[in-house]
C-alpha cells in the first residue's frame, strides 16, 4: 500500500484527467458522434430496405394471388361461355330442324291439298266429260236405235211381253 501510494503521482493524475477530458470531448465531437450517427443511419436504411423488400414481396404475392384468381375466374367464364354456346348451337340446330320439318310438312300438306284439289277437279272434269260423252253416245245410240222403228217396236213388244202385269 505504501509503495502503491509512492507510485501515485498527483501531477500525472491531474494531467491525465485534463488530457483525457479533452480527448473525450474531441473524440465525441469529431469521431464518435458522426460515426455512431452514420452507423445508425446505415442500420436504419438497411432495415428500411429489408422492410420494403418484404413489403414488395408481400405485394407481389398478393398480386400473384389476384392474378391467379382472375385467371381462374376467366377460365370459369370461358367454360360457361363455351357451355352456353354449345347449348345454343344444339338448340339452334334443334330449332332449325323443327322449323324445317314443319315447313316441309306444311309444304307436303299444301302439295297434297293441291294434288287433291287437282285430282278432284280432274275427276269433276272427267265426270263432266264422261257425262257429255255418254250423253253424246247415248244421243247417237238413241238416234241410231230410234231410226230403226221396227226394231224399236219389236223391243217394246218384247219388253211388254216380259212385264207381267199383276
Amino acid at each position: 500500500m505504501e509503495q502503491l501510494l509512492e507510485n501515485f503521482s498527483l501531477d500525472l493524475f491531474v494531467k491525465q484527467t485534463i488530457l483525457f477530458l479533452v480527448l473525450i470531448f474531441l473524440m465525441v465531437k469529431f469521431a464518435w458522434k458522426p460515426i455512431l450517427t452514420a452507423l445508425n443511419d446505415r442500420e436504419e436504411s438497411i432495415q428500411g430496405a429489408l422492410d420494403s423488400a418484404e413489403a414488395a414481396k408481400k405485394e407481389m404475392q398478393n398480386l400473384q394471388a389476384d392474378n391467379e384468381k382472375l385467371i381462374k375466374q376467366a377460365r370459369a367464364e370461358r367454360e360457361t361461355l363455351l357451355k352456353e354456346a354449345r347449348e345454343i348451337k344444339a338448340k339452334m340446330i334443334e330449332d332449325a330442324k323443327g322449323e324445317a320439318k314443319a315447313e316441309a310438312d306444311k309444304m307436303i300438306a299444301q302439295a297434297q291439298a293441291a294434288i287433291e284439289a287437282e285430282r278432284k277437279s280432274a275427276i269433276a272434269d272427267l265426270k263432266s266429260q264422261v257425262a257429255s260423252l255418254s250423253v253424246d253416245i247415248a244421243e247417237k245410240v238413241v238416234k241410231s236405235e230410234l231410226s230403226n222403228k221396227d226394231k224399236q217396236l219389236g223391243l217394246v213388244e218384247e219388253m211388254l211381253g216380259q212385264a207381267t202385269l199383276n
Partner: protein
Amino acid sequence: MKVITKTLTSLSLILLFSLTAFAKGDKKDGQNSQGDPINTKEEINEYIQHHVKDSHDFHLFSYFSGGEEHHVGFPLPVILWGENGLTAFMSSAFHHDDDGKEIVEKGGSNFVRLHGKIYELNAGATEVAFDEAHHPTNASMPIDLSITKSIFGILLLGFLMLLWFSKLAKQYKKKAIPTGFGRVLEPLVLYVRDEIAKPNIGPKYRKFTGYLMTVFFFIWLSNLLGLMPFGFNITGQLAVTAALAILTFVVYMASSNGHFWSHQLWMPGVPYILRPVLAVIELAGTLIIKPFSLAVRLFANITAGHIVVMSLIAIGITMQEQMGAVGSTLLSFVLSLFITLIEVLVAFLQAYIFTMLSALFIGMAVEEPEHH
C-alpha cells in the same frame, strides 16, 4: 492529399504494431550510474522498478563503447510551476542524472532530479541534503506540468485516435461502408457499442457510448503501446488508471437516478433490520470499492505484465551461471515470447473489463424501475 493521409495512417500503424516481441531485449543494458552494464540481480531489479515508473526523458536504449555509456533516446520538455513561477527546459539538462547531483539553474531556481521526481532547492541551497531515509531536506516539489514519457504517450495515442477515427467518420460522409483501415476500426466500434454499451446500459446507452469508446480504445491502445519497444507504461501508472476510474465514478454518480439511490439506501424486499447494514455495504461499494477496484485492477495487471516480461528477459543474465549463455538466452526468449503473447491478450482483456464494468456501473445507476 489523399496519398499523404494514407501514408500517415500506414506509418502510424507500423509504429504501433511492429517489433512487439523482442522489444525489451535492448533494455538489459539500460541506464545506470556506475557506467557499466546491468549485471547483478539488484541492478536488474532496480532497472525494472525504474522502468515501470514514469520518466522525464524518452530513453530507448544505452550501449557501451570505449568504457563510456551512450544513451539513445530524446529529451522531453520539463515544465515546472515553482517558487518563481513557470519554468521550462528540456530534460537533457539533467544529463541523465537521477540522484540529485546535477543542478539545473533556470528562472532563478535550482532544480534537481531524484528518483524520477524533480525537486526545487530552497533559496540559497547549492546541494541536496538528505535525511536518513534518503529524502531531501532542503528542497520542495514544484507543480510538475512536464511532458513526461506517459504524457507523451497519452498525447501520441490521443493524436492517433483522433487521426484514425475522424478519418473513419469522414469516410461515412461519402459512402456507407468504409474502406481500408476504417474497415478494421468499424467492427471494433460496433463491438464496443453492441457488446459493451447496449447490453449493460440498456436503452439509454447512446449518451454514454462516447465516453465508453474513448475509454476502451485509450486503454487498449495504451496497453498495446506498453508492449512495444519504446518502454511506455501508461496504463501501468496508478495515477492514470485512478484518473480513468474516477471519471467513471463521476459519470455514474452524475447520471444516477432516484431508483438507484432508493435501492442503495433502503433496499426493498429485505427485512427492515438488515436495510441499514445493506445501505452501508452498498454505499461503500458504490463510493469506494468500485472505482478503487477499477483503478487497481488495470494498474496491477499491466504493471505485473511488464515486470514479468522484463524478469523473464532478465533470466538470460541471472540464469547464466546455472544454464550457460545459450541455455539461459533460449529459455528467456521462449518464456518472454510466450508471456508477451499472453500480454497481447491481456491488453485487450483489461480494456474490455474496464469498459464493461464502467458500462455495468452506469447501467445500474440509470436503470429505470420495472413497471409491473
